[in-house]
């Protein structure tokens, strides 16, 4: 019943950059998410499920990202997710820093899947060296790759890499599901089936039976999440998807109430492990199951991998696994791992 994350969860960590066939477009600065959402919403209407899903061979890059200017936002982010005050940009913050560029890829007219209604299935991140507030020469690149079948549609990886002083500092792979789409020549498939795409190793594997028989471990923490947590994380992450902001917005997409950002819950688990235990270089994975409805109460087990009988990263000293579920019910919300590299 233990969530285990295998090595190589982020695919190649060599930092090869976008696939060689991709054209890299340099942007002057990170785009504003507001405008991207507007384009994404409009574009989504046109992006109907069709038989041929082909990803644009395109990457966006911004060199010389201003990290100094992100100071107040970093402080606000740290308060919301519970990171201790620090000038080091945590993996969660690096994710939100790169998020507009990944979104820019997804709102391209030739990106075949609609932005609205995409479901964040899982996220795998490696931080290889710390990025600090005020660091010069920070470069962000994002692209989409590896479209593949999912039993409910098509899943795709949005990859973001962040270089600091020419060295790869961060690589994040966010896997999204577009429901209803299919790939040419591939039938509906279960996720994570044998076949070895890069992210299959990143999926927490449940030992033994399938997900229906998941048994919650003894909790180590309880989060009481108010309605305000959606707008609060929306403000610090820039992810103001209406499903997180209000009941009304959520109902429009078929949810009974507003739902918490998956990345908020994963970032909070990352923060609870804390900088002292994850070190400067670490892996952080998350898999998202049922969304957390707001307000809501989530029970967590954030445990030493050794106590959980899990082997997070072969050769890694220590490491943590975490599980989150609805308080009092075996309804699973998220699972993942944090391990020093």
């Amino acid at each position, binding site marked *: *019943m233990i969530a285990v994350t295998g090595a190589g969860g982020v695919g190649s960590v060599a930092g090869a950059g976008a696939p060689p066939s991709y054209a890299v477009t340099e942007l002057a600065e990170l785009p504003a998410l507001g405008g991207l959402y507007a384009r994404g919403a409009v574009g989504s209407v046109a992006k109907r499920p069709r038989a041929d899903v082909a990803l644009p061979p395109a990457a966006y890059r911004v060199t010389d990202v201003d990290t100094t200017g992100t100071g107040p936002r970093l402080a606000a982010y740290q308060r919301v997710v519970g990171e201790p005050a620090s000038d080091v940009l945590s993996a969660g913050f690096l994710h939100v820093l790169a998020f507009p560029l990944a979104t820019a890829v997804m709102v391209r007219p030739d990106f075949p899947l609609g932005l609205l209604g995409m479901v964040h299935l899982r996220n795998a991140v490696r931080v290889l060296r710390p990025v600090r507030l005020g660091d010069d020469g920070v470069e962000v690149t994002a692209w989409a790759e590896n479209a593949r079948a999912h039993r409910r549609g098509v899943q795709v990886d949005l990859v973001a890499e962040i270089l600091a002083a020419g060295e790869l500092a961060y690589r994040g792979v966010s896997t999204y599901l577009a429901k209803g789409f299919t790939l040419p020549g591939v039938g509906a498939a279960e996720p994570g089936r044998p076949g070895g795409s890069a992210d299959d190793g990143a999926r927490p594997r449940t030992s033994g039976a399938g997900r229906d*028989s998941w*048994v*919650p*471990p*003894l*909790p*180590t*923490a*309880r*989060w*009481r999440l108010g309605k305000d947590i959606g707008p609060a994380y929306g403000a610090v992450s820039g992810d103001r998807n209406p499903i997180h902001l209000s009941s009304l917005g959520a109902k429009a997409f078929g949810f009974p109430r507003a739902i918490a950002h998956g990345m908020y819950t994963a970032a909070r688990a990352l923060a*609870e*492990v804390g900088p002292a235990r994850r070190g400067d270089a670490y892996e952080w994975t998350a898999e998202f199951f049922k969304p957390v409805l707001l307000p809501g109460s989530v029970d967590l*087990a*954030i*445990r*030493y991998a050794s*106590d959980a009988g899990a082997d997070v990263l072969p050769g890694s000293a220590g490491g*943590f696994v975490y599980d989150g579920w609805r*308080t*009092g*019910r*075996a309804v699973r919300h998220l699972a993942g791992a944090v391990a020093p590299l």
Partner: protein
Amino acid sequence: MASSIPTTREAVIIGGNRIPFSRAGKKYVRTSNQDMFTAALEGLVARFGLQNELLGEVVGGAVLKNSRDFNLIRESVLGSSLAPATPAYDLQQACGTGLEAAIAVTNKIKLGQIESAVAGGTDTISDAPIAVGDKLRRALLQASHARGTGDRVKALLPVLGHPKWLAPETPDTGEPRTGLSMGEHQAITTAKWGITREAQDEIALKSHQNLYRAWEEGFFDDLVTPFRGLSRDDNLRGDTSAEKLATLKPVFGRGLTGEDGSPLPATMTAGNSTPLTDGASTVLFGSRDWAEERDLPVLAKFVDAETAGVDFVHGHEGLLMAPVAAVPRLLTRNGLTLEDIDFFEIHEAFAATVLTTLAAWEDEDYCRDELGLAGAFGKVDRDKLNVNGSSLAAGHPFAATGGRILATAAKLVHAKAAETGTPARALISVCAAGGLGVTALVESA
């Protein structure tokens, strides 16, 4: 076995005084921590003739404090009959506050820095601080830093738009890092150790029976001063029974699941958990010379103390298990084993806390793997455990519990030594929030 403790002079326990403990929201409503601590202190002064006495130090604290109580103990001293020149300071270590205060003052006595001292603590749930939410607090702070009315109004304007900010925040017993209440934490430990409901209820029943007997025998006559019309701890149920305790519904540990997916039984009730309580306690210490010069009784020596912390945040250890680690270190340093102890005063935060503590000391693997001992630490003779009752019956005003236990332990070892003619020892163990444990060794003097 040789002791590894450097030689210092003795710090002796002269006596104690507290006010009766009262369940929250009853007799001590509209009574402040300062009121209660001053009353307990004045009772002590009266009992030992300390009017106008210049003591070396008075140390104590409260776990839940109003911000105006920044110098709570000093203010209490100024309101007492002690000489106003008696210095004082506040100290806080959650439920370990009272016992830690005793450690602090006895160390000064042992080192010759002071000749006499009072240690104690007070806590009130009935007069607990009510805080405003962070958003309102930030707005108020900004307004107070503003230069001029315009800026002040500007700072406060957002409050008008958010009436919800005005909702008060009351303190709870939740652990800041985990969000789980102390009861939920203990319920997880209870489940891990497989402690039964019956065993917990038995501890609770004994606590009430023992405390009731001690009151009836007059044990507390020289330890408690009546206050606000209360002359006995009002949580005490001398007539409770195993049957009555068995009818109570579990309040902690509901919804826990075993590894095989079956639900774990919820065993912790309001009967075998301590109630929220108001109260205050004090203990008088001195050098032996100081006590003898004044013809004051010398009940016991405060021999040694040990504190511990456990790594509970990620579930490796139970929140309230720190004393389990502290006691073996304390006894070993003093060349003692559990066999050498005549009285075990193990604070009953929950009946299950006592039982997991005893179970852990008896567990071969746990003692070896977690405590680094050669094998099981040993077995506590139940007939020596909390013989005059403990927190389940008396109640537990957090910072006041250490003083209650110390005075009881000192009297017990004194009486036992007088009866047998041989020295008697008491071991005190207090668990505290934050995964802390404070333990002490007291010996007849």
